[in-house]
């Protein structure tokens, strides 16, 4: 308080803040709440159309970019909404240009596996059951991975060697309590010989000098390393120096170098990064909001098994995005036939108990029993083939009619029988959808009172049609949309109207949204700003609000992990909650405030914010109170509450401390498995800019900005 008074009086005596002075002194220390008048002469309350534009951008897009509220208001909010409902007509070439260098999202799973092999293919190649691709750089990547797996196996084998002090019966002299076989306990292994140290020194020097090579020579040198050697190279570099290893390389070359170490990281990171870049930069914002909505509705967990991650780009590209605003049944069919979902919810494991495959297995087991002695261990018998209900259940409970949608356990079993045979050919090699007649349960089925005649593959489509057109589904999906777009507890009358549109329009998602947007409830003042942003909403809207340039999105993806919303990392099939209480916790708020400061103060590697640009002019340090009002306008688009306004102004009190704080801000978080990312250079803020940056950070971290 003391310092605030000092700064204010200083500004006053300089004649800079005549209006504010009287206010600050009249209200006295601690009475900051009364400072309404301070929210600026130049800040106009938005007109009605701008208020509508702001609401539309907050709900139907990932928040406004600087100037966008005014643009949308000028164009007319209704016209903007029309265009967003017809995304095909919106030019998005700037985004496509930005993404043109990312290869992962464009590849089909099999190609992806050739370029960035999963562990199962590497093990096959290691055992000579599969040929290593001959072209470069795939060959180098495969060989590197093979060498890494081999090293790991050797290490494990060494650790498994029967200790010499233990004889075949496992007898041991009790005096030898220490475990001499343990390498950690072996002083000889601990202390390298002089020769070894020297060798390591030269190796490290070689690696360091590799960093200094021109990019193309460096890339060649990295490709020509002994297979697996890349690990040593990374280890020998201090984290600070690692980013330099990738400097100047093309994105494809960077992918390759990272894939030498870990192909999976390339696949998962790039999938998540491109998803985030689209959310941030696409002009087709509603299309992106809906794509994220469906990706969450039809959640897939990237770590389901060894290959699931390789199906994620295709899932978004082919199953979700094309139908995000289309017909629900098309979307449901595409998801049901996507290898990503068939693997994730185990349908490809499901076998009809009376199917040909099950009968053959049974006969084989019988034969084995006849041939074996009766003492044969039970555990070694082949597992029985059978129904896996997982997808059948979630299809009804989470994807269509909802948990109260009127189905029974028997319906789940029948639905699972209908879907037997729907599988992937074969997932270990990136295969596509395949119907396997041999695994299909023969006979008629009855699901929720509907008879489905014995008909092989077609039965599944019939089931999906029944579910997609069920009134329960219309209501369930409409309510979920209303929770995302209107309020945590949406008015039942609105949901009913949306459900009616759903049924009468044959599940046309754009029309259901249209009914919602045209409703009084959507624009209700009491619900404006009542939704807490999810971490995804928050990060994307913050980047958009600051007009940040994202050159390297990996750190933003990592921030989502810190905030508890890894994009492809939730195991539960119901995805993330879209209600407020799920996203307000102590750890969550701390992460968000730190992210806000880090973003505005340019402490997030690969992301650059220009506060000057945000202010629309060169920063004038003598007019920071006006700057604050301008920042409020730019970031919140509406005057902040008096308390927030005063609080942000208080940051001007101790310039030196704020600047130091901004400069030394350390963010928790990780590099998402990318060892080269650890110390990517950050844009240094100029001290004069730091004040404005801290103010911008405070506004982004403010409670106002947590809401939409």
């Amino acid at each position, binding site marked *: 308080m003391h310092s605030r008074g000092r700064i204010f009086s200083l500004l006053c005596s300089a004649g800079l803040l005549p209006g504010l002075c009287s206010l600050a002194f009249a209200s006295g220390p601690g009475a900051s709440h009364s400072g309404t008048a301070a929210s600026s002469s130049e800040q106009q309350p938005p007109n009605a159309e701008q208020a509508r534009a702001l609401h539309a951008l907050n709900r139907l897009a990932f928040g406004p970019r600087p100037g966008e509220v005014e643009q949308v208001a000028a164009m007319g909010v209704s016209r903007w909404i029309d265009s967003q409902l017809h995304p095909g007509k919106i030019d998005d070439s700037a985004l496509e240009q930005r993404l043109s260098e990312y290869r992962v999202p464009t590849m089909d799973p099999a190609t992806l596996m050739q370029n960035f092999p999963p562990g199962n293919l590497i093990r096959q190649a290691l055992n000579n059951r599969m040929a290593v691709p001959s072209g470069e750089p795939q060959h180098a990547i495969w060989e590197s991975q093979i060498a890494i797996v081999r090293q790991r196996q050797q290490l494990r084998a060494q650790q498994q060697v029967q200790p010499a002090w233990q004889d075949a019966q496992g007898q041991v002299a009790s005096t030898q309590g220490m475990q001499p076989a343990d390498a950690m306990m072996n002083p000889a292994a601990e202390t390298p010989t002089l020769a070894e140290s020297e060798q390591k020194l030269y190796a490290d020097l070689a690696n360091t000098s590799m960093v200094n090579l021109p990019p193309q020579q460096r890339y060649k040198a990295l490709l020509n390393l002994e297979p697996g050697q890349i690990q040593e190279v990374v280890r020998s570099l201090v984290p600070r120096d690692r980013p330099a290893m990738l400097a100047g390389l093309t994105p494809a070359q960077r992918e390759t170098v990272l894939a030498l170490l870990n192909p999976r990281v390339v696949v998962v990171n790039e999938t998540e990064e491109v998803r985030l870049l689209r959310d941030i930069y696409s002009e087709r914002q509603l299309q992106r909001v809906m794509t994220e909505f469906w990706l969450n509705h039809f959640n897939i967990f990237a770590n389901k098994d060894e290959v699931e991650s390789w199906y994620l780009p295709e899932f978004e590209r082919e199953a979700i995005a094309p139908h995000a605003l289309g017909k629900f049944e098309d979307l449901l069919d595409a998801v049901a036939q996507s290898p990503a979902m068939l693997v994730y919810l185990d349908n490809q494991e499901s076998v009809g108990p009376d199917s040909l495959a099950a009968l053959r297995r049974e006969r084989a087991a019988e034969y084995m029993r006849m041939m074996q002695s009766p003492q044969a261990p039970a555990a070694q018998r082949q597992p029985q083939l059978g129904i896996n209900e997982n997808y059948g259940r979630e299809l009804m409970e989470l994807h269509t009619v909802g948990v109260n949608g009127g189905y029974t356990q028997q319906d789940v079993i029948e639905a699972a029988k209908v879907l037997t045979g729907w599988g992937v050919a074969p997932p270990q090699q990136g295969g596509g959808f395949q119907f396997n007649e041999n695994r299909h349960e023969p006979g008629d089925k009855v699901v929720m009172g509907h008879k489905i005649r014995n008909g092989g593959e077609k039965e599944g489509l019939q089931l999906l049609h029944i579910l997609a057109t069920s009134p329960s589904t219309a209501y369930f999906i409409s309510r979920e949309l209303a929770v995302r777009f209107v309020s945590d507890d949406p008015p039942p009358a609105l949901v009913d109207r949306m459900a009616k549109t759903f049924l009468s329009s044959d599940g046309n998602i754009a029309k259901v949204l249209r009914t919602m947007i045209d409703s009084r409830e959507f624009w209700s003042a009491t619900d404006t700003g009542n939704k807490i942003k999810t971490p995804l909403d928050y990060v994307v809207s913050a980047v958009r609000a600051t007009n940040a340039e994202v050159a390297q999105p990996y750190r933003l993806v990592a921030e989502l992990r810190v905030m508890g919303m890894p994009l492809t990392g939730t195991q539960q099939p119901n995805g993330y909650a879209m209600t407020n209480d799920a996203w307000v916790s102590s*750890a969550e708020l701390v992460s968000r405030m730190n992210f806000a400061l880090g973003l505005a103060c340019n402490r997030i590697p690969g992301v650059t914010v220009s506060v000057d640009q945000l202010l629309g002019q060169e920063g004038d340090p003598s007019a920071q109170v006006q700057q604050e009002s301008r920042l409020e306008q730019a970031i919140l688009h509406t005057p902040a509450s008096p308390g927030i306004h005063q609080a942000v102004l*208080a940051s001007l009190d101790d310039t030196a401390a704020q600047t130091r704080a901004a400069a030394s801000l350390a963010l928790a978080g990780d590099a998402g498995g990318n060892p080269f990312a650890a110390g990517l250079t950050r844009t240094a803020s100029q001290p004069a800019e730091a004040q404005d940056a801290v103010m911008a950070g405070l506004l982004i971290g403010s409670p106002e900005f947590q809401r939409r």
Partner: protein
Amino acid sequence: MAITRRALMRNGAMAVVGTAALPSFLTRTALAADASAGGKNQRVVVLFQRGAADGLNIVVPHAELYYYQARSSIAIPQNQVLDLDGFFGLHPALAEFRPLWNQRHLAIVHATGSPDPTRSHFDAQDYMESGTPGYRATVDGWLNRALQAQDEYRREKGSPFRAVSMGTDVALTLRGKVPAVALSNVGNFAVGGRNPDAAPVSEIFETMYDDSTSSLLRGTGAETFEAIKMLRSTDPAHYTPAYGAQYPPGPFGDSMRQIAQLLKANLGVEAAFADIGGWDHHVNEGNVEGQLARSLRDFSQGIAAFWRDMGDDAENVTLITMSEFGRTVRQNGTGGTDHGHANVMFVLGGQVRGGRVYGQWPGLNPEQLYQERDLAITTDYRQVLAEAVWKQLGARNMNLVFPEAQLRRQHFLEYLPALS
């Protein structure tokens, strides 16, 4: 009083050193009296071994012939087992548990687990953590509901640190209505990091959240800043474990050290959760040495260091370990074990009647196995948890904590003394 006797035994070494132990001895008695009232100053620490730990090689039924027949290369030889009672013995890598057992602070429950037959790690972990086996849609965890049930009996507001989950997000066990805080690094839980220059920024944020029109943001904001300030006052960055406790390096040791730190700082922690991964040993599990032994050393050293570090404060703590399911009785073709059914739980605490293996042993004869391959469950894991919830946290509404389990007091194993 048995409690004081055992407390004396545990602190025997210190008592010899000087009279300094006396005042704390008196304190402990006072707290013990409190404890019998249930709930006050009582803390529960839950540790989850993710990946399905091999309970049969952790607490070894070394008197079972079938154990050695089924595990030709990975069994722990009888003369290597740390014998407990002539039938069971600890894996030799659990040597640090031995004193805790001898002092009767460590109890074991064998052949326990979730009745759901799933062998999926994720489903099983969710079921264990939600406390509702077989029911996937549960959104909150049993320990959070235990705190909710506790609230039915008391009015005062909990501390922001009442429920602490180690990690970047609140584990399902602790998710729910009662605010729980996720901490990955006690030293980083601050706005702007530990940097002292950031304090003014933090205060500005505090003013803002205090002013928010959203009660959710205002309320959580207040809790957050209170927590930040409480934590700052304990100088979390400079913590020295007491009594020479040495935590093993790595995430589990870090979690245990930070839980001890929070508990000892009197921040009002009542429930803490941490996990430790890497138990899914399908290949080359090892026996006396090897992968499982390494995991067990980390596990037991972390717990033993925690116990030592807590000193007298351990008197009010009950620590429970669990894992989603056990592993097959028979070793597989690759020197490991596959997903099984029943498992073992450890219970450690000042009040615990330790030095005993609780539960019925179902046997390992082929006809005694679950689905002809796994150790059968004779104690539902919720019986073990419910007793701690009832006696340690003083909660009564078991239908809220474990819906549909129909748990009654007569289901308790009585590893904790009855409440007076």
